[in-house]
């Protein structure tokens, strides 16, 4: 093998004498043309996998139980696309609330006040320690526990007492349930981001006379975004799929709920599961593309920070001012 290599490189040296004649004057050195290492097992495994996949596809396309005509019929059904819209709304609203609440909880956990800190810890303990499905069922029942919203002094006749209509709106209940749960996870992501910023940054800003709020908003938070954004993208994708659990409340107007409702009438559950999956895949794919570009943008910030790199600045493509 080594003998083989040597022969080969010798041959290439001979075949291009002009490049080797003056290696010191900055011309290109000879390119290495070695025999590639072979990976017979890799090739074998790949072939087997491809064969299995092809067999599966051919088989699936011929099985009537998949109901491909039904898939084609329902994939652009108006009820399905309406359900997809509800799923998107649940995802977006819940994530926005979760991010704001998560930021608040993260700051609370870093607070010097032990009571504030403990309250945040307790919140995380409860919401991360119980299943989201159980939480959603609970929120569905909350209207039974709190039948009215009372305003007044504790243990006295309330001044105002309004029926708790809010808790009867399952869409709002779903957003409450999803976002309160997600906030606990966002809090940990934000906290990790804030802690990733060097303590010296906060110190330098404080020494300049900047207030805590200015230090956070101008110095610490912008630098923590690099750490916060990638896992937040994952959370969005995860939230999109978790919305299918709102059946626990029960809310049935989301993508999975609608497809279930249709199949309950038509007795074709399998094609409708495929239809729902196609839509979920479409959304997660779009989100993954978005996440790819976000991560690329924020890892460029890391590249900037390499101390051994003395490149001229690329202009204002990094930093908040852009």
């Amino acid at each position: 093998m080594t003998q083989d290599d040597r022969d080969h490189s010798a041959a290439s040296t001979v075949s291009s004498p002009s490049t080797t004649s003056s290696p010191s004057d900055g011309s290109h050195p000879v390119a290495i043309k070695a025999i590639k290492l072979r990976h017979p097992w890799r090739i074998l495994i790949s072939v087997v996998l491809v064969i299995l996949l092809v067999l599966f596809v051919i088989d699936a396309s011929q099985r009537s139980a998949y109901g491909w005509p039904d898939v084609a019929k329902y994939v652009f059904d108006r009820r399905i696309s309406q359900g997809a819209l509800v799923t998107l709304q649940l995802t977006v609203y819940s994530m926005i609330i979760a991010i704001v609440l998560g930021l608040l909880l993260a700051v609370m956990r870093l607070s010097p006040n032990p009571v504030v800190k403990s309250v945040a810890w307790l919140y995380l303990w409860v919401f991360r320690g119980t299943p989201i499905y159980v939480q959603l069922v609970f929120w569905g029942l909350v209207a039974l526990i709190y039948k009215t919203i009372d305003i007044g002094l504790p243990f006295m006749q309330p001044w105002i007492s309004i029926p708790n209509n809010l808790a009867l709106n399952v869409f709002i209940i779903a957003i409450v349930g999803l976002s309160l749960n997600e906030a606990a996870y966002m809090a940990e992501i934000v906290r990790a981001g804030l802690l990733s910023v060097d303590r010296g940054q906060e110190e330098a800003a404080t020494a300049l006379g900047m207030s805590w709020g200015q230090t956070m908003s101008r110095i610490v938070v912008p630098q923590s975004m690099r750490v916060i954004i990638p896992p937040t993208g994952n959370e969005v994708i995860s939230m999109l799929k978790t919305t299918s659990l709102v059946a626990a409340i029960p809310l049935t107007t989301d993508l999975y709920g609608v497809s279930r409702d249709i199949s309950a009438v038509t007795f074709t559950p399998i094609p409708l599961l495929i239809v729902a999956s196609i839509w979920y895949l479409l959304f997660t794919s779009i989100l993954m593309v978005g996440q790819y570009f976000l991560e690329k943008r924020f890892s460029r910030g890391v590249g900037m920070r390499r101390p051994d790199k003395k490149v001229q600045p690329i202009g204002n493509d990094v930093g908040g001012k852009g």
Partner: protein
Amino acid sequence: MSDMPMVRADGVSKSFGSNEVLKGISLTVDPGEVLCIVGPSGSGKSTFLRCINHLERVDAGRLSVDGQLVGYREKGDKLYELKPKEAAKQRREIGMVFQRFNLFPHMTALENVMEAPMRVRGISKAQATARAEELLARVGLGDKGDHYPAHLSGGQQQRVAIARALAMEPKLMLFDEPTSALDPELVGEVLDVMKGLAKTGMTMIVVTHEMGFAREVADSLVFMDGGVVVESGDPREVLSSPKHERTKAFLSKVL
């Protein structure tokens, strides 16, 4: 005014838990004076500097800057802790330069210098830009304003950090080992800027291991060890003929 010291420390003490780091530091720094603090690692030099701009709380003793008690307000015979806003106001008057520069990496050199004057002093962007350009020119970096810290050498970063501190127009500058993180060939450019600053009459407290700088620029020198001032006086005298055994032992190692 002229006979009031810029910094007066009177028995300043500070503990972290059971670790007593400062055990009664007393010294004064007059306006325009350059004081160098030397001493072995862990002797409390950084902690003392951080007490002066209230990044750390003093546990006992009195510490005042320009006649104002640091971090507290005295009313009758009681001391009241300052609100964060009031403490921030005191810090504006005191510039600080760190060993590891601590420039804001997501801002250009110019933005680093402009940030605090704009946010804290509330001056206009145009004014802040003009002032920042002037300060960068003063530290020899007039052409580097649009560079990010990552694209500057250590010496250049530290000079930006000095300009950033000066932008708040402080009456006192604190330097915590400003050249310790630098490659040897970059130390000179930072010390030159500091020398220039001393010539303008800035009051400076410099923690350093650069004995040449202390000898040449400092008006007085303090040797700290184990949280106390062991010896102080004229830098040339202390450095050439130290009186205490501990000072002698320390200097024999660094000189």
